[in-house]
C-alpha cells in the first residue's frame, strides 16, 4: 500500500519482473536476426516501459483485471503467464497462448485476468471500461487497469470512455504510457496539450477525474501513483488517469514490408526519421532496467551477485521459451475454421 511503500522483497520482485520482460523482448527482437521468417507480420516491443508496466501491475490484487494495447508482451509476463506459451504464440505455433490464432498483437490469458487485446489504437479502452462496469455490478471490489499509448488519447474511444467511467464512477485506472511518438509522429505534432507545453494528464480535467503525470522509468514512483488510483477505484470513488512518461527503446515495430524482404527492427524514429540521435542516446543512458538495478544494488536492497543471478535466470528462462517455440508444431491448417463462432 502507498503509505508504507514496497518492502525489499517487493523491490527485488520488481527488478526480477523488469529483467524478465527485457530479456523476453530481446529474444523476440533477436529472433528476427537469428531465425528469419519465424515471426510474421508486425511486432511491437515494450523495452523502455518495463518500470511502468511492473510498477502499475504491482498495485493490483490477483482478482483484478488488465487490458492493454498490441504492445502487449510485458504485462502477461508479470501476471504469471508462461513465456514459453507466449513465444510459441509469437512464432505461430499450436502450443501458443492463443493456439496461433492471434500472434504478437493479441496476447490473452483469461485465467490471469488478461482479458483481451485489441490491435486497433484506443479500441481496447472502451473494453476495459466495460470490464469496469461489470466489476462495479459484481461488487467484489475488483479494479481494472487499462493501458494505452499517448496516440490513443487522440481517439474518440478514449474520450467517450473516460466520460462514462467518470460519470458512472467505474473502478478503472487509465494508464497512458506516453512515449512521445505515435509511430513517427511526435506528440507535439498531434496533441494540443503537448503543443501548449502541458502534460497530457490535463485531459483528465475535462472528465472531472484526477490526472497525474509520473516518471514511467521509476517503478516505485509508478507503483505509488497506481496504488493511490487503485485504492480510489476500489473505494468506489471512480477512475484516475495516470500519464506515465516512458521512452520506447526500439522502433515502433519491425519494418512493414512485403514477403521477400527480411523483417527487422529499424533504428528508433528519433534517429531514423528526426535525425536526433542525441535524444535517443540520452534515453538509453536513462534505461530503466539498469537504472533500477543500480539503485537497488547501491542502496543495498540487493547484492550484485543476486542481481546477476536474476539476470541469468531470466536468460535461461527465455532461452527455454525460444527453444520451446521453435520446437513446437504448427497448427493443423483446417483448425483455421474452428473458432469462428463460439
Amino acid at each position: 500500500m502507498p503509505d508504507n511503500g514496497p518492502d525489499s522483497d517487493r523491490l527485488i520482485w520488481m527488478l526480477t519482473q523488469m529483467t524478465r520482460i527485457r530479456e523476453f523482448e530481446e529474444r523476440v527482437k533477436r529472433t528476427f536476426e537469428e531465425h528469419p521468417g519465424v515471426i510474421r507480420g508486425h511486432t511491437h516491443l515494450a523495452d523502455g516501459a518495463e518500470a511502468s508496466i511492473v510498477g502499475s501491475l504491482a498495485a493490483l490484487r490477483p482478482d483484478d483485471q488488465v487490458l492493454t494495447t498490441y504492445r502487449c508482451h510485458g504485462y502477461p509476463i508479470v501476471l504469471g503467464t508462461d513465456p514459453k506459451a507466449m513465444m510459441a504464440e509469437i512464432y505461430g505455433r499450436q502450443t501458443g497462448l492463443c493456439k496461433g490464432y492471434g500472434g504478437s498483437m493479441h496476447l490473452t490469458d483469461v485465467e490471469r485476468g488478461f482479458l483481451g487485446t485489441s490491435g486497433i489504437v484506443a479500441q481496447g479502452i472502451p473494453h476495459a471500461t466495460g470490464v469496469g462496469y461489470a466489476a462495479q455490478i459484481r461488487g467484489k471490489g475488483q479494479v481494472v487497469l487499462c493501458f494505452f499509448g499517448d496516440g490513443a488519447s487522440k481517439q474518440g474511444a478514449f474520450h467517450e470512455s473516460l466520460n462514462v467511467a467518470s460519470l458512472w464512477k467505474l473502478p478503472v485506472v487509465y494508464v497512458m504510457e506516453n512515449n512521445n511518438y505515435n509511430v513517427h509522429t511526435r506528440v507535439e505534432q498531434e496533441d494540443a496539450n503537448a503543443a501548449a507545453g502541458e502534460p497530457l494528464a490535463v485531459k483528465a480535467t475535462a472528465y472531472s477525474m484526477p490526472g497525474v503525470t509520473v516518471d514511467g522509468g521509476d517503478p516505485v514512483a509508478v507503483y505509488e501513483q497506481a496504488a493511490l488510483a487503485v485504492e480510489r477505484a476500489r473505494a468506489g470513488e471512480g477512475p484516475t488517469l495516470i500519464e506515465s512518461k516512458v521512452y520506447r527503446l526500439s522502433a515502433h515495430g519491425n519494418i512493414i514490408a512485403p514477403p521477400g524482404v527480411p523483417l527487422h527492427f529499424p533504428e528508433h524514429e528519433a534517429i531514423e526519421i528526426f535525425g536526433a540521435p542525441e535524444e535517443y542516446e540520452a534515453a538509453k543512458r536513462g534505461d530503466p532496467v539498469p537504472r533500477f538495478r543500480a539503485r537497488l544494488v547501491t542502496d543495498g536492497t540487493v547484492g550484485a551477485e543476486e542481481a546477476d543471478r536474476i539476470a541469468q535466470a531470466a536468460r535461461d528462462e527465455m532461452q527455454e521459451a525460444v527453444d520451446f517455440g521453435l520446437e513446437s508444431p504448427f497448427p493443423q491448417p483446417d483448425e483455421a475454421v474452428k473458432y469462428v463462432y463460439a
Partner: protein
Amino acid sequence: MARQLPYIAAIGEAIQQEMARYETVLYFGQNLATTENDPFLQAFGSDRVRVTPISETAEIGMAVGAAFAGYRPVVELYMAEFMLVAMDQVVNEAPRFHYMTGGQVKVPLVLKAGYGFTAGWAGQHTGSIYGMFMGVPGLKVAVPATAADAKGLMAASIRDDNPVVYFHHYLLTLEPGEVPEGEHVVPLGEAAVVREGSDVTIVAIGWLLGKALAAAQQLAAEGISAEVIDPRTLAPLDTATILQSVEKTGRIVIADQSTRHGSAAAVIAAEVASEGFSSLKAPIRLVTALDATIPYSQPMEEYVLPDEAKIVDAVQQAVGASAVSA
C-alpha cells in the same frame, strides 16, 4: 398461449423475460430508462439498466468488455446507422476476440438496431444495411419479419455466445401478430418456409415478407404457386432450406430492401447460382432497392424501393422466361 402483440412489444417482452431468467443480461443505451418509471429500471435496477451518453463507440465497446467479464449486454441503438459511428467495435472488435484468443474469450452481446425507416426519413436513417454485416465472420445477423419471430429471435440472440446484430424494421413497429406468451426461442440460422408452393421460390427479408405473401396471394389467382421463405437470420444463413426449395420450384426471386449491390439478396443469389444452378429453369431475379440513397420526397422514395407489384412482376418474368426456354 399465443395472443396478439405488436412487433415492438414482442421484442421488449423477450428482453424482459431473458433479463428475468438470467441475471447476467444487461440493457443499456441512449435515452433508455431516463426516469424512475421506466419498467425495465423498476424490474431490474440501475446496475443492469442504464442510460448511456451519446457515445456509440463507448456503448458497444463497453458491451464487448462486459461480455469479456461474463455478462450478456443488450445495447439499445435505436437506429442501425448509429452503428456506423462505431464500426470498428461492431466489425473489428466484437466478432474477432473469440477467434483471435483461440477460443479463450466469448463475446455474447446483442446490438438492437432499428432499420429501414422509409417513411420520409430521407438519406441517413432509412438504410437496410445488414448486408454490411452478414459477411463478417463471427458476427450473427437477425432480421425478424413477424412479431413472433421478433420475440423468438431476440431471446435466441441474448442466449447466443456470439455478438448478434439484431435488425428490427421500423415500418413493422406496430404490426401485430400472434406471439407465444412464455418462453419462445427461434434458433439463429433456421429459415422458415412461410408458404408452400411449387412454381417459384420467393425469398423475402424483413419487411418484404408481408409484401411477398401478398404477392403470392395475387399470383395464386393467376395460377402461379409461389413458395415463400423468410431466412430470419442472414448469418448464419440457412442456404440449405433455400436450395431445397429451388430444387423443387426451379425458379427464385429474392426480395430485399437493401440497395442491390450491398444486399443480402446478392449473396443468396450467388449461393443459388453456385450450388443450385442445375435446378434453375430461369435466371435468378432480384427485387431490391435501387443503388441510390433513399430520397425524402414520397414519389421518389417509392420509386427506389421494392414493393408487392415489383415482386409480382419479377415472378411473372421468372415463370415466363422459363415457359419460353422450357
